[in-house]
């Protein structure tokens, strides 16, 4: 039976895409989209890239206000869900109009992630880069010459560091792991980006955890003091699973779903950064932080709800990071322990027990697009095919 009332918790790119795709799939019932932030749903990836430079908030909005009326999507910004009552199939929300209950036939959890705040003394002084509001604050801070310490050498910290450096600021990057982006890319690619950032004039402190943040700077585990006027904390995220856990849904590094992205309650789906789902390639439960996964999840869920399509999720992941003039592109998904091999200059393959898991490329869109096709191949890749990527 097709549900009549779909409630989506979370109005990021994935939650909004679920609403859009439901209408595109012909769903004629009620759609309510609940967002915790004020304003229209917006894209997050540019917050650490173009937006820091141009400050154009209007370029970030995913759909105009008129869209929600036209598509009869009840969008409720600045609204928080307090609890999910699975037995009664309703959620309790608080927002501008006070607390009330909203019923659902199907519930979609698109609650995303929040920034990890490691137990570092004085960490409350550090800025975040997660929301448009955070990015606006950072832009203000970048309007005059300043010394910046970035805690975390992952995509967000490095993208921010590249922009800040290009604007003429002094930047120190502090990473507790021995190399940059260790969770996401090969050691070779890490080393390459370390060299790039050093060339641009950024100072790297690798293998050193920050232990204290003060108004005058950051102290590292070995006692080194890094003088800074402000600190950006970009030390990763954790999935927002509290609502799901309180409602008794299975959670394990995210809200656990099956291959159709259904949670342990068949009336509830989960998508995007908050969902732990079976990797179509390896079968292992994985959680991805990416626009691609969030929107591909959303489209699958919408088709299932609107059309009863029970196909398992099979999309292959892709990621990108723009740092300064360099574009890193990744097709597929490798765990940090995956083996690595340089296939050609700037093209690195990652391998695990079931074969090729990801291909990293640098400033090479052609190789990246070829890599995406290879990664999607249902049959094992030959060495010749792999080398063909660079041709």
């Amino acid at each position: 039976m097709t549900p009549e009332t779909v409630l989506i918790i979370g109005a990021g790119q994935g939650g909004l895409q679920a609403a859009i795709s439901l209408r595109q799939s012909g769903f004629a019932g009620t759609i309510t989209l609940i967002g915790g932030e004020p304003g229209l749903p917006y894209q997050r990836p540019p917050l650490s890239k173009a937006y820091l430079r141009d400050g154009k908030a209007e370029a970030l909005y995913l759909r105009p206000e008129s869209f929600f009326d036209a598509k009869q999507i009840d969008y409720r910004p600045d609204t928080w869900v307090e609890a999910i009552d699975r037995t009664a199939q309703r959620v309790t929300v608080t927002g501008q109009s006070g607390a009330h209950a909203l019923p659902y036939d199907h519930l979609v959890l698109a609650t995303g992630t929040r920034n990890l705040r490691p137990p570092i003394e004085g960490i409350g002084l550090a800025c975040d880069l997660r929301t448009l509001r955070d990015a606006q604050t950072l832009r203000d801070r970048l309007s005059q010459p300043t010394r910046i310490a970035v805690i975390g050498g992952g995509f967000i910290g490095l993208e921010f560091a590249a922009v800040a450096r290009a604007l003429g600021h002094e930047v120190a990057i502090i990473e507790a792991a021995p190399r940059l982006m260790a969770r996401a890319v090969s050691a070779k690619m890490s080393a390459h980006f370390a060299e790039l950032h050093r060339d641009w004039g950024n100072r790297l402190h690798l293998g050193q955890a920050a232990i204290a943040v003060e108004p005058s700077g950051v102290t590292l585990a070995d006692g080194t003091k890094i003088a800074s006027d402000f600190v950006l904390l970009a030390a990763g995220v954790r999935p927002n699973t509290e609502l799901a856990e309180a409602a008794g849904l299975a959670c394990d590094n995210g809200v656990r779903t099956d291959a159709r992205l259904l949670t342990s309650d068949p009336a509830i789906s989960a998508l995007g950064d908050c969902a732990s789902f079976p990797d179509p390639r390896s079968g292992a439960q994985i959680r991805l932080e990416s626009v691609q996964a969030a929107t591909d999840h959303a489209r699958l869920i919408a088709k299932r709800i609107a059309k009863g399509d029970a196909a398992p999720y099979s999309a292959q992941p892709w990621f990108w990071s723009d740092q300064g003039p360099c574009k890193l592109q990744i097709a597929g998904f490798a765990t940090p322990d995956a083996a690595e091999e340089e296939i050609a200059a700037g093209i690195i393959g990652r391998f695990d027990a079931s074969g090729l898991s990801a291909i990293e490329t640098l400033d090479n869109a052609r190789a990246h697009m070829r890599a995406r096709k290879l990664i999607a191949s249902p049959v094992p890749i030959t060495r010749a095919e792999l080398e063909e990527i660079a041709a």
Partner: protein
Amino acid sequence: MVKVTYIAHDGSQTDIDADEGDTVMHAAVSQDVDGIVGECGGAMMCATCHCYVDAAWADRVGTRDRSEEDMLDGAASEVTERSRLSCQIKLTSDLDGLVVHLPEEQF
């Protein structure tokens, strides 16, 4: 303002007024023109803003660069010599009245 006309695969036509400096992709998405997705927001990562520039405008729109060409390789619909990623076409007063055709699918 720059007038842009989007002609969908089924022949239906949408005319919009866009700001100079905006891209053909963003103008479409922000005014809810069906048929242009622009999933990556213009970062040239996805090829879901594929369009065909109307023959009458081909000369004025400019050519695609190497990266755009490479990304178009992954487009869902047929790529022709008039194919562009609409995120890479910036609207100027010269393009007032631009007509683009949209592919059957973007995924």
